[in-house]
């Protein structure tokens, strides 16, 4: 039995586990099981997966960062590396912390980490994964289960959580498979306790009395937010990293009573949804950059016909197909002005799963109330990373359809005009099937009735009518949120999913005694000028952080406020930020 060491008492400490191997080795499942096991023990978790754009044989890794305090993103360094193949040892051993551990298959791995990396200070923990599986008469793929069982022992974490999660993961479909996996995990666990010559790395402990937390991805949260928001229509064409929304919706099609259609392409996904929304169904579509290109003409149609629409744009690195399964925030400027002509739209970018839920819900309300298209920007990192979060607060979540008329109201309306030029620019809306509401939704510019009209005065009037919506909209959209001390030497300025790494980096710097806070933007168009300026005015020095090459958010800020951040940090290598190097870069920038 190995010696127990809890190396640091600090609650903020993060334990970083990485499991790696070929696609098909069950890397994703193991990562998810680990995440849930920690969550059930009251810990905070943030994960991410890295995989190339190919199906099998590619090198996949799953990182699980665990802490007793809230953890927002990824760590560059790894404490426990679970290597299911040689490549993982070769590629990731250098990421190990000196007090880390590399756990690998004793019989399967011909290479010895110590020989490969003579300077290696981390502890080497060979475990006979294959042999244990064989003894249990299990499938070879179950090596992953053995390995995570062993991992639990290595970090001195209660096996019961793991057992629990395995049972609820496999058990639903097949109790026997569940039992076999629990057995395998237990064998791994026992091997470490009973036979392995190694020490324990106790960085985190279960937290008693912690609230129950969900573990889910940004895409899960977006889907749930939309469903809470009365979604009735979801059409899509598969595209990473948006596809899992389609899978979720399809899996719950019957339970939720929504229509889910996979269409022939994104043009059809977008315009079919416009048809459904025109007919009265709350509608959403999701895609990535290439598919969004194909939805852009329809986006303008939604705007001109004043049909509510929600577009989820899950970014990945471009241009073109770029890195199809990697991360970037490179489509902001595209989203801000996509499609010909001037029109009012909302562009918003949630920063984490909780925001993804609430602001997708809000997106559906905004689309309906202002009868405009709303673009929800996500990215590979937000869409696919798992994160622990408190159960979504469902109180006060009122679906607001705005000026949607009932048949009774319509009956009283005299001389109904679909595009009536009202004071706030929003016109009462009838739906096909309603008596007294007959109108033509028209992508050509038109007069109040919907009839095409080319008169210059009418054109100006109707453009102004549609733009009137900006007033109330600008007033209601939230400004950026300030995290950390209200007053600091430097303010990190960021948007969307960069929130997580920036939160971690800020916390690291605060712990180091640096004076820094964080200003995070969700709502980008219309830009919350007043609120942004108020907050920025107080910043002594601003450091912009984003995941693209041309600092697209900074370009937006310059356009909107004629203000640029003092220092720019950019990353465009297809990977999200890691907390420590980001903290270093920020510290550097503060000099």
């Amino acid at each position: 039995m190995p010696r127990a060491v809890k190396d640091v008492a600090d609650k903020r400490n993060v334990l970083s586990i990485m499991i790696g191997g070929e696609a098909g080795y069950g890397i994703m499942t193991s990562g998810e099981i680990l995440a849930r096991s920690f969550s059930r023990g009251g810990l905070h978790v943030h994960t991410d997966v890295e995989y190339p754009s190919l199906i099998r044989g590619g090198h996949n890794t799953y990182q699980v960062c665990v802490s007793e305090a809230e953890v927002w993103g990824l760590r560059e360094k790894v404490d426990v590396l679970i290597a299911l193949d040689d490549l993982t040892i070769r590629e990731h051993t250098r990421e190990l912390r000196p007090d880390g551990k590399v756990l690998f298959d004793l019989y399967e791995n011909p290479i010895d980490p110590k020989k490969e990396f003579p300077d290696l200070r981390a502890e080497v923990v060979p475990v006979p994964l294959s042999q244990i599986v064989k003894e249990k008469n299990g499938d070879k793929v179950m090596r992953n289960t053995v390995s995570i069982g062993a991992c639990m022992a290595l970090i001195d974490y209660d096996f019961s959580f793991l057992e629990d999660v395995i049972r609820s993961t496999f058990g639903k479909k097949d109790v026997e498979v569940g039992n076999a996996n629990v057995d395998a995990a237990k064998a791994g666990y026992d091997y470490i306790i009973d036979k392995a010559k190694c020490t324990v790395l106790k960085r985190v402990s279960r937290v008693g009395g912690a609230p129950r937390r969900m573990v889910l991805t940004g895409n899960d949260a977006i889907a749930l937010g939309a469903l809470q928001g009365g979604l009735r229509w979801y059409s899509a064409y598969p595209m990473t990293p948006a596809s899992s929304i389609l899978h979720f919706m399809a899996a719950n099609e019957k339970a939720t009573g929504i229509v889910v259609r996979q269409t022939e392409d994104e043009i059809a996904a977008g315009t079919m949804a416009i048809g459904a929304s025109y007919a009265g169904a709350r509608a959403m579509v999701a895609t990535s950059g290439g598919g969004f290109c194909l939805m852009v003409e329809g986006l303008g149609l939604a705007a001109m016909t004043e049909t509510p629409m929600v577009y989820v744009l899950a970014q990945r690195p471009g241009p073109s197909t770029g890195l199809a399964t990697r991360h970037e925030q490179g489509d902001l400027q595209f989203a801000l002005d996509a499609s010909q002509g001037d029109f009012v739209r909302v562009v918003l970018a949630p920063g984490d799963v909780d925001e993804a839920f609430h602001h997708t819900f809000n997106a559906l309300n905004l689309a309906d109330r202002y009868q405009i298209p709303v673009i929800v920007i996500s990215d590979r990192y937000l869409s696919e990373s798992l994160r622990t979060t408190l159960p979504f607060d469902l109180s006060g979540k009122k679906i607001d359809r705005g000026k949607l008329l009932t048949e009774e109201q319509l009956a009283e309306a005299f001389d109904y005009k679909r595009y009536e030029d009202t004071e706030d620019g929003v016109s009462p809306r009838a739906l096909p099937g309603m008596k007294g509401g007959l109108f033509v939704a028209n992508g050509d510019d038109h007069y109040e009735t919907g009839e095409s009209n080319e008169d210059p005065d009418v054109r100006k009037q109707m453009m102004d009518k549609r733009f009137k919506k900006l007033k109330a909209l600008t007033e209601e959209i939230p400004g950026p949120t300030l995290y950390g001390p209200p007053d600091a030497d430097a303010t990190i300025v960021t948007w969307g999913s960069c929130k997580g790494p920036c939160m971690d980096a800020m916390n690291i710097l605060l712990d180091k005694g640096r004076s820094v806070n964080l200003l995070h933007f969700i709502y980008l168009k219309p830009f919350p000028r007043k609120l942004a300026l108020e907050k920025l005015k107080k910043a002594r020095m601003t450091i912009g952080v984003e995941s693209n090459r041309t600092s697209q958010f900074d370009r937006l800020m310059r356009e909107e406020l004629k203000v640029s951040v003092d220092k720019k940090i950019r990353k465009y290598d297809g990977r999200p930020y890691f907390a420590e190097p980001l903290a270093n870069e920020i510290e550097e920038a503060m000099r």
Partner: protein
Amino acid sequence: MTTPEELRSTVIPDWCPGCGNHAILMSVKGAIADLGLDPKDVVLVSGIGCSAKTPHYVKTYGFHAIHGRALPVASGIRLANHQLTVIAHCGDGDCYGIGMEHFIHAMRRNVNITVLVHNNQIYGLTTGQTSPTSDFGFKTKSTPGGSIERGVMPLILAIGSGATFVARGFAGNPKHLRGLIAEGITHKGASLIDILQPCVTFNHVNTFAWYRERVYDLKDAGHDPTDRARAMEKALEWGDRIPTGVIYRTERPPLDDLVPALAQGPLVKQPLERDIRPLMERFY
């Protein structure tokens, strides 16, 4: 009961005098009236083109969308509220050019919509370029030396896509057309009616006279529209003789019958609020 006259909107058609579209407009209003449909339950959907102006001229609901996308918009409307009668008005470029993909997929999906293609073998609204149905050798602004591409044959493509109702009408025979449209609307599933529609301004080859000389009625010819092999033959007939009428008809459940959510009635009539807590449960 609504009469065709009552279906006339306040917008005056701005098609060229003599254009085949006038007759199509008359026929569609006639068919709606004949079927006793309530105008509030009818939606006319269109893309962009001369043809696409039709919804403005009929006093029902309408959606004048973008070029090539009438069919997805129409499908979305129909699936969101399958109590509506949804009729799409497309041009030949609209439906068989830029919209070809949607056409094929709408047919195979068999969504319960009626597709009327105003086929004038030319791009009308853009003042006369070649169209996917233009015949080989046809001279236009974009093919001054004559088109070097063979025209598409929409009817065989429809049958090949799994369409369940495929017909051809002629704007020069509005009474016949009116009947065909009514039949198409009544048909359960997607129905295609390709309509020979002379463009008197830009197509000086395929004129009323040109078509009149060639068209014949399949019913008169004793054609059995349920015979697929014969239907395919007829669908390929184009030249000296051009068949009109119902070319092919079969039965297959329309998509609206298969979509689970619609079993409880139209999507738009279902309650908005739902309890997502059971869905949240799986994430702990």
